[in-house]
């Protein structure tokens, strides 16, 4: 019964998403612009006149060039970015009355939250994968910088990358879905989301190498979940003994703990918001 409701609700979320082509187009365009415009223009690697040096190798955590370094960060950035709209959908669902239908249904609130999160995570994985594919493709286009992978990456590496994206997506989707159930105003929601998102992104190594950061920021960045997820990607894509103190599995472990804590917290908040007052 629970499984059936869970599956039906997840399918509903995905159907709703697939049937808004403009929203899909918009969400695809965002990573595309970041990779094609922002990434190409903000290519720090070009500031180095004589090609990769030991210093740049350290700065880029083993990546052969800045764009490759940046692409891995962009994958995670897009994953986090894709979670933003999920909570806004919850607010729209509330306004449409759809959430009322759910609250009077004999369905566990955990299932309701779980379905929203699953659908959100699936979307994030899709977009994350799209960014990797685009960045890899750019490497073969004349006049464009692209992602160069310096390792022979196996199924385990691919799985680790997918798990890193999924864990981060789970944590943030739960957070934003819970926010959606608590808040009534879309405006308030986006204000809060930016309060969470931007500091998290800027205090991570997604875009800027930690060598450029002051020490205090470096400390924050090293524990930032975005950094942890990016590390899993970079360590698999550009393995280099000169940088990584820990294996990707360790980062994944910490990420998993973070995701579990977020899911727990957000379940409690959502159940409270959906229960009768």
């Amino acid at each position: 019964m629970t499984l059936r409701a869970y599956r039906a609700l997840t399918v509903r979320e995905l159907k709703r998403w697939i049937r808004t082509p403009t929203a899909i187009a918009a969400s695809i365009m965002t990573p595309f612009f970041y990779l094609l415009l922002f990434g190409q223009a903000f290519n720090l690697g070009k500031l180095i006149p004589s090609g990769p040096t030991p210093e740049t190798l350290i700065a880029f955590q083993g990546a052969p060039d800045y764009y490759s370094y940046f692409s891995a960060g962009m994958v995670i950035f897009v994953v986090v970015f894709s979670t933003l709209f999920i909570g806004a959908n919850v607010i729209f669902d509330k306004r449409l009355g759809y959430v009322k239908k759910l609250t009077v249904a004999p369905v566990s609130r955990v299932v309701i939250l779980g379905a929203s999160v699953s659908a959100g995570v699936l979307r994030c994985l899709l977009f994350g994968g799209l960014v990797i594919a685009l960045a890899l493709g750019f490497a073969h286009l004349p006049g464009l910088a692209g992602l160069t992978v310096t390792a022979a990456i196996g199924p385990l590496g691919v799985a680790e990358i997918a798990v890193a994206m999924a864990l981060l997506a789970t944590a943030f989707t739960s957070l934003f879905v819970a926010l959606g159930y608590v808040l009534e105003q879309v405006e308030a929601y986006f204000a809060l989301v930016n309060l969470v998102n931007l500091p998290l992104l800027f205090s991570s190594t997604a875009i800027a190498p930690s060598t450029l950061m002051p020490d205090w920021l470096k400390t924050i960045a090293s524990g930032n979940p975005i950094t942890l997820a990016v590390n899993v990607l970079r360590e698999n894509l550009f393995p280099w003994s000169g940088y990584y103190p820990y294996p990707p599995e360790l980062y994944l472990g910490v990420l998993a703990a973070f995701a579990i804590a977020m899911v727990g917290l957000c379940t409690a908040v959502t159940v409270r918001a959906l229960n009768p007052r």
Partner: protein
Amino acid sequence: MSSRSFGPPIIVTDRLEKVYPGGTKAVAGVSVEVRAGEIFGFLGPNGAGKSTTVGILTTLLRPSGGRATVDGLDVVDHAAEVRRRIGLVFQESTSDDQLTGRENLELTAALYDVPPADAGPRIDRLLEAMSLSAVQHRLVKTYSGGMRRRLELAAGVLHTPKVLFLDEPTLGLDPQGRAGIGEVVRRMRDEFGVTVFLTTHYLDEADQLCDRIAIIDHGEIKALGTPSELKEKVGGDVLTIVPQRPDVDLVPIVSALPGVVGVQRVESGYRVKTLRGEALTPRVVQACHDAGAPVASVALKRPSLDEVFLEFTGRAYREDEGPGATEMALRMNQFRGRRR
């Protein structure tokens, strides 16, 4: 209607109270018993406490005092079991407008765990009953207000609930749509044996549809009874007839007709008080004709909500509701319907 025999009490509230955090007392000691198979109406203006009562009975709101049971189960202690036994149709549409009508019903079937083998045929039957078969594969966002409401009704009874709650089921619909909903609600009761608890602020709707009506105002029940009992208290329908020949005294002739409560001579004709205006009208016309004074015009005035309110609450209907709350709700609903 009152000749129908009903089952044991299925909804029981005992001094039910709800005080909102702001201090507003929305429900102030409501005690009612609704019997199985009954169509029971809560009649009152906006803000009277109708929706709050429905909210408590459907486990969406927690009562501040008193208690309520549905099918013998306390709505607070056994919320999950209560949810399984009830269907609920809200004022607003709760369908996902990006899904088709049929997909919405399939989702409801999954949420209520309707056996998969039963779900398909039952959905077919309900779509048919709601005249939605032809549009079942269209996205709900293309539906008219009446179609949406019928889809809500179908979803409300899909899991064969024991009690169906309808919160203002016809709000914002045109007269045709309202009539259609009324017919459907009666069929649900007759065919599926479901008990119906509805709220409305249309007196005529409550009159035509309900076996019993409770008039609620300021969170309190002001009157409770069958439509005819309540109308009787207010004075019933008023039939105004203007005969072609004013010289014939029709008072004794009309007074003698069964169902006439009183006849009063007015300027150009007569005011006839009755409980059954529609049924009496042709008989009055016939009697006048037989008496040699054919009727020139007839007007039937039913007791309006204002009169009922005046009678039972001692105040005019919309006195302290703020500027046209009903119209606002209507407009918002129309807006919702129009949006694509």
